[in-house]
């Protein structure tokens, strides 16, 4: 019997397809697959792992990028941050010997004045000094970073006060000895009591704790790698800028093993808030020019969170493309695996096909039967994969503490694609089954 056009089978298939028929075919398919449970399971493993790894990787990637974006957002998308950086050639000199001299570098008060005076679109400027010190509560000691800053710090950095209050302009003007602790400081210094109203000692001076900031989570870890080693990670105490100026002056002394160095840094960090998002770029350029004009050496660094945000989004896009191709390959491999087994199954069930044809099954009935089986296999693989893929991120979060986000669309998409894989890779075996000659098929042993 000649094999005519396959498209004709599908037309007939479509015409004959009713809900009841489909339901019965699905039930029949389940029976056939259940008869070879182990083989069915092994067949779909490719799809299972493909779907599962895609969902899990997407969730982990999504979590990582969410963290990165949160961190950048916490710097403020309207902000431009200037940081003082020790110029590289100076570093070399100071490493060479133990001779002591005062290094002068970084962003200055003059820079701040210039920026405010000459660049339009700048609304607020927040200067900050950073000093590494030990903070004491009687006998408890914490290595921390003292941040000398201004009263509008919380709004600028989207960082809220959890308890108490932040210091005010009055505190600044009065050079008050008050401080606000970063959340990470509290357990180390005040494990048992509320820190509010207590005093902590830094160097020879006492500061009254007036507030505690909200925790920033893990994101602070990655910030400022350059000027904080593991001991001070996330441990900040905020003190009025004027107070710091009064206590420490502008020359910082540091004793290190065998050497002694001093630095003159006026401001470690300046945050510039720009009026509107559109202006961020141009203001950043303007600031760059202003600083280039006044600084002979590159002893500053300009961080534009908005640009970083864009970069993070771009990175995520690339990550998704890479992941998409991996997913495509693994689903292709899984699909070929299914097709392989279905072809074997068709050969093995030649006699069944012959019987069905003799009893009145048309070619498209056979197509439907095998196609449904393949789709069921792939779909079941997809479901198992989705379940595993959703479970893995939870396990990762639970064991490794990594942030993961399972987006709704990723399981839906993964499942749909795996079912589609079933259709695509099921067509060929189904056609092979349907094109068998009933006489030959019945004779098959």
């Amino acid at each position, binding site marked *: *019997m000649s094999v*005519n056009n396959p498209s004709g089978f599908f037309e*007939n298939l479509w015409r*004959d397809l*009713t809900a*009841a*028929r489909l339901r*019965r075919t699905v039930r029949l398919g389940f*029976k*056939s697959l259940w*008869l070879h449970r182990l083989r069915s399971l092994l067949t779909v493993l490719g799809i299972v792992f493909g779907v599962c790894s895609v969902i899990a990787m997407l969730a982990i990637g999504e979590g990582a990028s969410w963290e990165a974006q949160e961190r950048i957002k916490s710097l403020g998308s309207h902000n431009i941050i200037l940081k003082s950086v020790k110029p590289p050639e100076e570093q070399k000199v100071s490493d060479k010997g133990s001779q002591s001299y005062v290094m002068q570098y970084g962003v200055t008060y003059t820079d701040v004045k210039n920026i405010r005076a000459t660049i339009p679109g700048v609304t607020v400027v927040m200067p900050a000094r950073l000093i590494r010190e030990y903070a004491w509560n009687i006998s408890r000691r914490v290595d921390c970073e003292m941040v000398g800053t201004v009263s509008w710090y919380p709004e600028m950095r989207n960082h809220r006060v959890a308890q108490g209050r932040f210091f005010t302009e009055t505190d600044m003007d009065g050079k008050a000895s008050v401080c606000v602790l970063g959340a990470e400081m509290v357990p180390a210094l005040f494990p048992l009591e509320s820190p509010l109203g207590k005093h902590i000692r830094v160097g020879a001076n006492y500061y009254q704790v007036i507030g505690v900031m909200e925790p920033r989570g893990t994101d602070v870890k990655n910030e400022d790698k350059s000027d904080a080693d593991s001991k001070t990670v996330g441990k900040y105490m905020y003190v009025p800028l004027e107070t710091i100026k009064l206590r420490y002056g502008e020359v910082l002394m540091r004793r290190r093993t065998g050497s002694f160095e001093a630095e003159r840094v006026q401001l470690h960090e300046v945050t510039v808030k720009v009026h509107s998002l559109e202006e961020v770029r141009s203001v950043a350029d303007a600031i760059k020019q202003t600083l280039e004009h006044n600084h002979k050496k590159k002893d500053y660094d300009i961080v534009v969170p908005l640009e970083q945000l864009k970069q993070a989004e771009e990175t995520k896009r690339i990550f998704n493309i890479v992941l998409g191709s991996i997913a495509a390959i693994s689903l292709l491999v899984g699909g070929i695996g299914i097709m392989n087994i279905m072809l074997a199954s068709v050969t093995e069930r030649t*006699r*069944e096909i*012959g*019987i*069905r*044809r*003799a*009893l*009145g*099954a*048309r*070619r*498209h*009935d056979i197509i439907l039967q095998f196609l449904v089986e393949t789709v069921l296999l792939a779909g079941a693989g997809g479901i198992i994969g989705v379940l595993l893929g959703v479970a893995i991120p939870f396990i990762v979060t639970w064991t490794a503490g990594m942030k993961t986000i399972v987006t709704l669309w990723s399981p839906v998409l993964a499942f749909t694609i795996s079912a589609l894989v079933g259709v695509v890779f099921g067509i060929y075996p189904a056609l092979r089954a349907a094109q068998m000659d*009933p*006489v030959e098929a*019945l004779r098959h042993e």
Partner: protein
Amino acid sequence: MAASIVQFEDVRKTYQMGPVTVEALRGVSFGIETGEYISIMGPSGCGKSTLLNLLGCLDRPTAGRYLLGVQDVSQMPDDELSAVRGERLGFVFQSYNLIQQLTVVENIEIPLYYQGRPEGESRERATELAARVGLEARLEHKPFELSGGQQQRVAIARALVNDPLVILADEPTGNLDSTSGSDILRLFDELNQQGKTIIMVTHDTSISKRTRRSIRLRDGQIESDVRQ
């Protein structure tokens, strides 16, 4: 004279086997009327299987006409032939040919399934026929849980379920011991007495003696056509 339900008119079938053309049937003509009980006999290679495949609409003749009922089915397209098989023919094979993953009652209702009959109705009819062949207690058993004789009974019930014009049996007792074989033959006798038309291929003369007409084939042609 009752109306002919099967009419073969000079039917020929040739196969191309590599370079050799094999003439399996060389002009076969006969008619079968309702209620007949016919055995087809002959040595192997005489064209019995080919004739049965043509009678069963599993294959198309190279030349000649085959009228089943009032319709010429000799050159029908594949899908229509499937429908003809499902609606007008019943098959009983030597090796039972039941589908292993299905239960007794599900096997019986297969022809109705492909006719698109509603599920409840098919189930009812299949159950009825299972009872007719004495398997009402085995409805939910799988074929491998049954003896050969029981499996052949399921096959007979399946061949009856669509109320066919003709039942085609291909050596139905070939795989059975003599006791269950004669049980099956008794069942065929009963069915014929109830008016079913049965065509049975066999090479056992004792079986052909039970039938009322015996067609003997040799070298693709009818050697004798005897009514007893």
